[in-house]
């Protein structure tokens, strides 16, 4: 067997291949995105990006009703969007196996909250596996497909950032050769969830959970590791690894399936120890269920609910040990993320700041418009929220204050769930301005294609959504398409549309600087002519990483290695100091 280093996400992709799945669908979201990107190497699997997680799951459900095994992946908050089909899929069950990956993000490395999606397993009555390394990510993916078909249920596979993005050694297997040919098979009593049918299915779902719970007590994915026999620990997923570092001598009940819990196994294990811990990140999900069984355990009384665990944090929480931390003193300048040099969003935010707009924001690279010096974002809730938030806030404001309200949203987020908000804004006639930052890619998660890109996940050409026509079709009368590199035009358009007492949409159209196929022509970088630079710092309001302040000479400088030649800075300069680099400069 071949041994390779794989990330958790790569291992899930491989496991899906080895499980004989035929369909994989997702909306990108950190830390889940690389699963689908890696699945594209397996031509046997039809893989695609959906416009949002709800559609992705619905596509997966369709494939599984057709008789194929299907994988659907998303980040934790994506499951909120996909919850509607999920809860009823739990009732219908599956035909081909369906595995839903929820990639949670304790510590909010790249998320707006740190919800614990193990709660979804209990809420939707869907079994959930939780791998502790990449080998388990592969093995549990295959297992999850089997369990899905054996128990006629969708199955969750839950990772966290540290599982998805850690690499460890994995033994590869093969894809089965006897994959059944999908074909239509009618079963409306099971698949049409009218109340009369669904009532009957609910009874089956309750029995299924009881069956799974008994079955899980006999399975090797829930296992006991004997230590010195003094202290017992119940744990799962990445927390298991931290327990092994922190308490190498403890007896461990490692749960591979975190819902439903193997109750008899837990009772038998717990009976051996005076001191019993539950070690888990985020919510007391296992702890509360164990306590409800009448077993005394220590968990969140010591271990923090907030943030992710590390070996040191666990040591500190359980035993009070002081642990060293990275230096966060104020004389070490922080290094927050920033929009890239040449990002077409930058000038838009500078102008929103100057116009003193109240900006309802959204999820994407452009959420960085919050950071100084652009500092032009006032709210950010979830995917697509900017437009509904703008409608709502303008309902309660005076006509004068309403004009300050601008919703800002990217193309991918707009198609994800923003479009519904725009329909509402037009329908109910809110006097706000919507700016759609159209860079034709889902950039924040690492440049994934979407229906505005003109390409699919597999880099094949695809029809492209016409944003302007789409906005007009839902009833927006005032739609303007501008080039955000033209700062004077951007300023004028933003001000005019903000002043308009009706719904209006500005589409800023410019591809992401990092998408090679859209930026074939490399532009000439600029330099600052120090004879002309007066040191007024107007260019610094852009916060472009290519522009730095030279404290000694009191002038600005450009790093020509990273300058993309977008010339937005040139338009902020009143002294003509920004010049194109010539052959000799």
């Amino acid at each position, binding site marked *: 067997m071949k*041994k390779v*280093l794989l990330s958790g996400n790569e291992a899930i992709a491989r496991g899906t291949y080895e499980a004989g799945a035929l369909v994989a669908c997702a909306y990108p979201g*950190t*830390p889940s995105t690389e699963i689908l990107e890696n699945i594209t190497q397996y031509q046997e699997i039809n893989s695609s990006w959906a416009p949002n997680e709800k559609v992705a799951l619905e596509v997966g459900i369709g494939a599984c009703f057709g008789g194929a095994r299907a994988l659907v992946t998303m980040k934790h908050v994506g499951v909120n969007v996909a919850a509607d089909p999920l809860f009823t899929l739990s009732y219908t069950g599956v035909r081909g196996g369906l595995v839903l990956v929820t990639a949670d993000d304790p510590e909010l*490395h*790249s998320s707006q909250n740190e919800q614990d999606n193990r709660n979804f397993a209990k809420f939707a009555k869907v079994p959930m596996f939780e791998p502790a*390394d990449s080998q388990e990510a592969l093995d549990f993916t295959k297992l999850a497909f089997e369990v899905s078909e054996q128990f006629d249920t969708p199955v969750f596979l839950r990772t966290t*950032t*540290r599982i998805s*993005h*850690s*690499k*460890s*050694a994995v033994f590869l297997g093969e894809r089965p050769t006897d994959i059944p040919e999908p074909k239509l098979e009618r079963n409306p009593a099971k698949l049409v969830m009218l109340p009369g049918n669904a009532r009957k299915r609910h009874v089956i779902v309750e029995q299924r959970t009881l069956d799974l719970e008994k079955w899980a007590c006999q399975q090797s994915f829930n296992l006991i590791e004997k230590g010195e026999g003094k202290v017992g620990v119940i744990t799962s997923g990445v927390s298991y*690894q*931290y327990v*092994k*570092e922190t308490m190498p001598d403890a007896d461990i009940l490692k749960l591979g399936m975190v819902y439903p819990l193997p109750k008899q196994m837990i009772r038998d294990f717990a009976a051996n120890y005076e001191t019993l811990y539950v070690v888990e990140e985020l919510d007391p999900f296992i702890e509360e269920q164990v306590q409800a069984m009448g077993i005394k355990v220590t968990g969140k009384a010591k271990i923090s609910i907030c943030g992710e665990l*590390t*070996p*040191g944090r666990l*040591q500190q929480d359980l035993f009070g040990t002081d*642990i*060293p*931390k*990275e*230096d*966060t003193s104020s*004389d*070490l*300048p*922080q*290094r*927050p*993320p*920033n*929009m*890239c040099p040449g990002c077409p969003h930058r000038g838009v935010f500078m102008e929103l700041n100057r116009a003193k707009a109240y900006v309802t924001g959204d999820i994407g*690279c452009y959420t*960085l418009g919050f*950071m*100084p*010096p652009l500092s032009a974002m006032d709210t950010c809730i979830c995917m697509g929220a900017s437009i509904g938030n703008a409608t709502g806030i303008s309902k309660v404001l005076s006509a004068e204050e309403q004009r300050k309200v601008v919703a800002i949203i990217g193309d991918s987020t707009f198609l994800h769930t923003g479009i519904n908000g725009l329909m509402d804004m037009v329908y109910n006639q809110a006097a706000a301005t919507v700016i759609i930052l159209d860079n034709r890619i889902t950039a*924040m*998660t*690492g440049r994934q294609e979407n229906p505005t890109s003109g390409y699919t996940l597999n880099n094949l050409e695809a029809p492209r959504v016409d944003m302007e026509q789409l906005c007009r079709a839902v009833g927006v009368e005032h739609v303007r398409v501008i080039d955000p590199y033209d700062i004077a035009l951007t300023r004028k358009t933003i001000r005019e549309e903000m002043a308009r007492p009706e719904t209006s949409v500005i589409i800023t159209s410019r591809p992401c600087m990092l998408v090679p196929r859209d930026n074939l022509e490399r532009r000439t970088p600029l330099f600052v002519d120090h004879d002309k630079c007066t040191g007024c*710092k107007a260019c*610094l309001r852009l*916060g472009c*990483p290519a*522009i*730095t*302040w030279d*404290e000694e000479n009191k002038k600005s400088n450009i790093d020509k*290695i990273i300058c993309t030649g977008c010339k937005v800075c040139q338009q902020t300069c009143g002294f003509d100091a920004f010049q194109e680099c010539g052959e000799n400069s």
Partner: protein
Amino acid sequence: MSKVKNILIAGVGGQGILLASEVISEVMLMAGLDVKKNEIHGMSQRGGSVVSHVRYGEKVYSSIIPEGEVDILFSFEMLETCRYLPLLRKNGRVIVNDWKIAPPSVALGKQAYPENIPENIRQQFPTTTVVSGLDLALAAGNAKAVNTVLLGALSNILEFDRELWLTALRKMIPPRLLEVNLKAFDSGCRIK
């Protein structure tokens, strides 16, 4: 080797840290060791701080290095080195690239870039190696080969066959960039 060894790689998004940690991990895997590596993607791609943890030994559990147990701080940028010094063991080693990349507050003239960083690190960790990565990479023929220069410097203080490093580099680096990178690696190896 019974004990687990820990390398913390620090730097700035875009410096080639991910490739460097891939190469190191591949060397350990080929040497027959258990390896885990871990880094945070996402926001860090936008010019933010990046750290990567690499752990190797007979059996590795956590992919995050236990705080205070870093054996080697392998840093691609001066300022970033300073953040992680407290996580080193008392007798830990530091390899630091002498490159300064201004964070936003410095670029905007609101804060100063700390001075005398190598001297300050040496007070605590006298064995620190300072590498002029960019100069050596340019001399090898490509500014982007800084990461392979640094890998050369790292290979000097690790006990793995040179052949393993070369095999890993050949596997990870596209053929058209291989020659420059092997040259860069060698110039790193020559640093004493």
